[in-house]
């Protein structure tokens, strides 16, 4: 009687699994979602207006972070930050980038979900550096 287990993939080493991960990453890089994200990121980084708005927002963010440490942050500062964030997000190049990033995230979530299903472990729960 034919059994699924008899054609199961032979066990591979961690190193081989990591190599498979690199090959998989290369395939992800070929997807429309990744290509669109990559392009949108390049355009955003080269767009003077978007970069100006981004820098203004980031500087304000840093200012507030400092003030927060000394208990000096106030409502006016926070309102300024919100205004600068809106101005940044209103930049077409920035908006396109955020949308492309969201589409990429959707694909990554679906891919991670599929992997989790197959391996019987939570692949997406693996938090690397920069998580949270």
């Amino acid at each position: 009687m034919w059994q699924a287990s008899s054609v199961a993939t032979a066990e591979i080493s961690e190193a081989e699994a990591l190599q498979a991960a690199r090959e998989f990453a290369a395939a992800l890089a070929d997807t429309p979602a990744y290509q669109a994200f990559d392009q949108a990121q390049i355009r955003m980084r080269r767009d003077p207006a978007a970069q100006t708005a981004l820098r203004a927002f980031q500087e304000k963010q840093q200012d507030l972070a400092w003030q927060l440490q000394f208990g000096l942050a106030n409502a006016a500062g926070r309102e300024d930050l919100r205004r600068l964030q809106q101005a940044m997000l209103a930049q077409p190049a920035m908006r396109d980038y955020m949308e492309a990033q969201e589409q990429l995230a959707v694909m990554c979530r679906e891919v991670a979900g599929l992997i989790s299903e197959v391996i019987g472990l939570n692949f997406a729960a693996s938090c690397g550096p920069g998580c949270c």
Partner: protein
Amino acid sequence: MLDTAIEAVAREFAMKLRASSPVAAFWQAQARLEADEEAQRLLAELQQRQQALMLKQRNDGSITQEEIDALRRLQREAQSNPVIMAYVQAQQQAQAFLPAVSMEISQLLGFDFGGLAGAGGC
């Protein structure tokens, strides 16, 4: 809905990951756990005892010290059961390998794959 091309590639990769030594070891430990009568009995009793106490506490808030002690004894029994412990350890080891895999993908792509794919919380 995933594009069929990337879905097929993802499945192929997932199967290789499934065959990697830490993940394969986890599946073996899981199979042994499911086949072990004593371990299954322990886990079933533990679950039933925990649920009963939770219900009791919710209804009239009266759990006796005796009941707590009995639950703790059961937990210790489960913790010293070799098949259960082997499963827990295998799961931890497999789970500990996954971030390295995710990072490998992130490094090649130049963005945090795990971060983007994660549910947004550790």
